[in-house]
């Protein structure tokens, strides 16, 4: 790794003042499971890492309450995977966290950093290749080795978001809480995560120097599941991940959120499919139709048409399990 300095401030305000100083040259360090690989790969080159793991004011707790459950940014994936309340109430999140990476990485990785991971695209991760996401002119994956890439074309980049948990959080209606030197703001996680644009070549609308402080999951009466397909049985990023959150009342689907991972720059909410499902009684036939609707507009690349079939299968299974 290139040299950098390191600070461990005491309070969140001290951290924010360090982080706001000079954009990308200063980076917050929590679990480090993504940041250190980016530094080792010479994809990012910070001058200063600000350790936020033991900050006063940044929570590592899961706190159920009447208005929902608050999850601190420093909560680890292991906590999410094993917390009885999360397992029982927000099954998709426990499953997504548990299917991510490995026990060691889940012990290290925090849910704050998890949604801010950069893509694992092998062109992006190779420092010698000037891909569009790193400021280059074109995306070499579009006409290259793109078996792991997006089937929905949402930006000049075709990398997919690596997080399993983000898809589950969005399906569960998570609100993300942010703090910057200008103050606090909260917004739906689905709005924070957004395909990169010409002027913002990253996958979130996080402002410079801003930290995720936590999430709130609204109360739910539904059931949620997360399904993940990998190239081997464990420890791989999702080829496709599907999070489904369904509430059934009086034999009909009263509420549903369906989120697809591994198919686009960020987890993709299948709104049209949700609209189709809402108000209808669950059936295999309905789920099949929903899967077709969810995949409308997909434009697979040379090597990833298989993701269409895979996504279709996982959507049907996820909906079936979430309504069982």
């Amino acid at each position, binding site marked *: 790794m290139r*040299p950098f300095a390191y600070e*461990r401030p005491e309070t969140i305000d001290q951290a924010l003042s360090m982080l706001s100083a000079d954009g990308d040259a200063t980076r917050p360090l929590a679990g480090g499971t993504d940041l*250190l*690989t980016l530094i*080792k*790969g010479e994809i990012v080159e910070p001058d200063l890492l600000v*350790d936020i793991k033991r900050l006063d004011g940044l929570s590592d707790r899961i706190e159920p309450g009447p208005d929902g459950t608050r999850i601190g940014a420093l909560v680890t994936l292991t906590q999410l995977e094993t917390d009885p309340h999360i397992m029982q109430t927000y099954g998709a999140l426990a499953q997504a966290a548990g299917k991510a990476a490995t*026990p060691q990485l889940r012990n*290290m990785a925090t849910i704050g950093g998890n949604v801010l991971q950069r893509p694992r695209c092998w062109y992006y991760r190779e420092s010698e290749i000037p891909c569009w996401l790193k400021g280059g002119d074109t995306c070499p994956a579009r006409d290259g080795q793109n078996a792991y890439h997006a089937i929905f074309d949402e930006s000049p980049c075709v990398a997919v978001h690596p997080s399993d948990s983000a898809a589950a959080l969005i399906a569960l209606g998570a609100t993300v809480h942010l703090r910057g030197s200008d103050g606090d703001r909260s917004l739906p996680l689905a709005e924070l995560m957004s395909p990169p644009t010409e002027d913002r070549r990253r996958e979130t609308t996080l402002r410079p120097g801003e930290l995720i402080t936590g999430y709130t999951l609204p109360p739910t009466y539904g059931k949620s599941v997360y399904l993940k397909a990998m190239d081997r049985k464990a420890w791989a990023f999702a080829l496709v991940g599907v999070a489904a959150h369904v509430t059934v009342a009086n034999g009909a689907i009263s509420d549903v959120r369906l989120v697809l991972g591994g198919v686009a720059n960020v987890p993709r909410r299948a709104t049209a499919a949700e609209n189709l499902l809402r108000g209808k009684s669950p059936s295999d036939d309905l789920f099949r139709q929903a899967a077709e609707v969810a995949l409308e507009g997909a434009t697979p690349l040379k090597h990833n048409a298989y993701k269409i079939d895979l996504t279709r299968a996982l959507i049907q299974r996820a909906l079936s399990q979430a309504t069982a």
Partner: protein
Amino acid sequence: MTTPDKAPASPRVPVTLRVNGSDHHLLVEPRHTLLDTLREDLRLTGTKKVCDMGNCGACTVHQDGHSVYSCLTLAVEANGSEVRTVEGLADAGELDPVQEAFIRADAFQCGFCTPGQLMSLRALLDARPDPTDEEIAKAVTGNLCRCGAYHNIMKAGRLAAEIQAERRATGNGPTAGMEAAE
């Protein structure tokens, strides 16, 4: 991408690590990983470097009781932590149950992944003294073995739980007469 002319080296900072029960006061560059600190500065080469990117598990150690990849942990981050490595498993010459089980179940060939596997299973048995097969497998999904000793690592996981239970039942004494003294 790369800006090669950037000034190398940044000032070293003091770090205190408690490794296998001994305190070490070190001066390290912030970029120095816990793995390099163990292997280079403390000469504890039992912990292995394989991928250095969090993709293999050979560098697994315990930090404050949790299994972590020491290649993705900076030494400065671990400042003040209690670190346990494979060298800290055996207690006064008596092998840890996971070590004894690995020998008896022939759970390694080349042995390069073994320290990491042992630390993962030790973390499991600390939390779940009577694990299911599924829990054993899950505990070491983050430890690649290229020789393919997995079949016997499963066996060793079961055996280690048995040895640990036996020892606890008999008041921590050595049980199976393992060749620790050989």
